[in-house]
């Protein structure tokens, strides 16, 4: 039997950049890079659903999440203090394939950087990270020790390249690409890599159950309709059917 929701205790919950928080919980949590947990830290039924967050790191007796405050749920989570309890279900989903080696590019857009630390730590091979942000960069300091180069793009040019992260990297340079971020970025990355280098992307969708039962989080793939929470969130780039 898998565990249902269980308790985590807040060790720290820090705003590391405007609206971006790092949440560290105490407790013995499992999971591989790319997998996620469903979190709930409120009583009552509004918000109704738990919120999915990717594993940002796991260390002995600690799990880390990196999240952006978007709406009600993440706002409530951002108010948690050391010692507060919350409920977690997971690890869920399939995670990234860690068996690959060679020269690997990690590409993130905004909060899509969340799973990249844990991923970089657990990959062998030569890793380069390409991270795009609106204006402030974050989390890269923690990732730096595990990668060969850090490449930054910001929309307003306040840091690194002014423009899109996809401007920065040449798929011909790599044996493998992993990407996580907003849908337009994912699509662009998949297009750039097409037929040149294998790419794995972490997909996002609204979720209700997180365990594959509600069929709320489906996307279209070359195999048919699949669930982001169960068959994903990581898919091979060429398998995802991008509509419109």
């Amino acid at each position: 039997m898998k565990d249902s929701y269980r308790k985590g205790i807040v060790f720290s919950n820090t705003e590391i950049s405007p609206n971006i928080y790092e949440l560290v919980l105490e407790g013995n949590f499992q999971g591989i890079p790319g997998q996620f947990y469903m979190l709930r830290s409120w009583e009552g039924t509004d918000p109704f659903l738990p919120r999915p967050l990717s594993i940002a790191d796991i260390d002995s007796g600690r799990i880390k999440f990196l999240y952006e405050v978007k709406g009600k749920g993440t706002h409530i989570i951002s108010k948690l203090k050391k010692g507060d309890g919350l409920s977690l279900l997971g690890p869920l989903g399939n995670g990234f394939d860690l068996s690959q080696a060679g020269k690997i590019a990690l590409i993130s857009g905004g909060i899509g950087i969340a799973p990249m630390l844990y991923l970089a730590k657990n990959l062998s091979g030569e890793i380069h990270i390409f991270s795009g942000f609106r204006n402030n960069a974050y989390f890269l300091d923690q990732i730096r020790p595990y990668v060969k180069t850090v490449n930054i793009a910001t929309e307003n040019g306040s840091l690194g390249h002014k423009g899109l992260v996809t401007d920065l990297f040449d798929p011909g340079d790599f044996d493998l690409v992993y990407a996580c971020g907003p849908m337009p970025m994912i699509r662009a990355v998949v297009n750039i890599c097409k037929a040149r280098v294998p790419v794995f992307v972490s997909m996002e969708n609204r979720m209700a159950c997180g365990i594959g039962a509600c069929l709320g989080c489906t996307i279209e793939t070359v195999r048919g309709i699949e669930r982001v929470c169960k068959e994903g969130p990581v898919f091979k780039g060429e398998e995802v059917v991008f509509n419109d």
Partner: protein
Amino acid sequence: MTKVDILGVELKNPVIAASGTFGFGREFDEYFPIESLGGISTKGLTLNKRDGNKGIRIYETASGLMNSIGLQNPGVKGFIEDELPFLESKDIVILANLGGSTIEEYLEGIELLNNTSIHFIELNISCPNVKEGGMAFGIKCSSAEEIVREAKKVAKKPLIVKLSPNAENIQEMAYSCVKAGADGLSLVNTFNALAVDIYRRKPVFENITAGLSGPCIKPIALRMVYEVSQVVDVPIIGIGGIVNWKDAIEFIMAGATAIQVGSANFIKPDIMVDIINGIQEFMREEGIKSLDEIRGII
């Protein structure tokens, strides 16, 4: 102690997983033995496989959830071949939830299910998320009556008709369905509802409206179950916003023989186990030997 009887079939307890919120039980069986449930209603089946709706399928509301899954399912044959064996390997009562766009489709589905081990057919005349039918049957008494009468003619399994809260008059609808041959009723399915994306200036859902469920609807669903229990004598399965054992007891006191838990499964996969335990505890504390003692007591 918690045992209930529905049309001669014994359920271990009155707690049934609601259609569309529990898949075919596989995912949940990883979190708790689904055999501990009173029963399971399958994801809504249609004669042929369906991919379901495009666009956003899930949207959260205050204490609730709108969905527009659109009956994504493997089709009745796919169910019988790929999913039923798993359920048969468990000691659990099965309601096959059956939707459709035309009467013929429903009837063919029933014929296929007749020859299986399922215990009940739950006739879904109330799905708001399929354009070509489904709920249309559940709004006006006349169309509901027709489909139930035809379904009853071919069904060899007890026929439970699942009512829509969007029915024009829930009492008349219940009465019509029973008159037409329904052996039992389950209610409610989701409420037709709207959400607007104010920045895109468009409905959130491609189908414009979608189905609302969750605790937000409980007080209305409970009223409907009560009203229906005043006009029919067949067993009623109460559904709508149940998240804890107290909710379940309210439905039973309002007249339900059993209850279904839907959206609440999404906030805790083993929430039905908590509900079953809570019912047991309540019965012990209040000295209730059988739920028959409190059914419809209000």
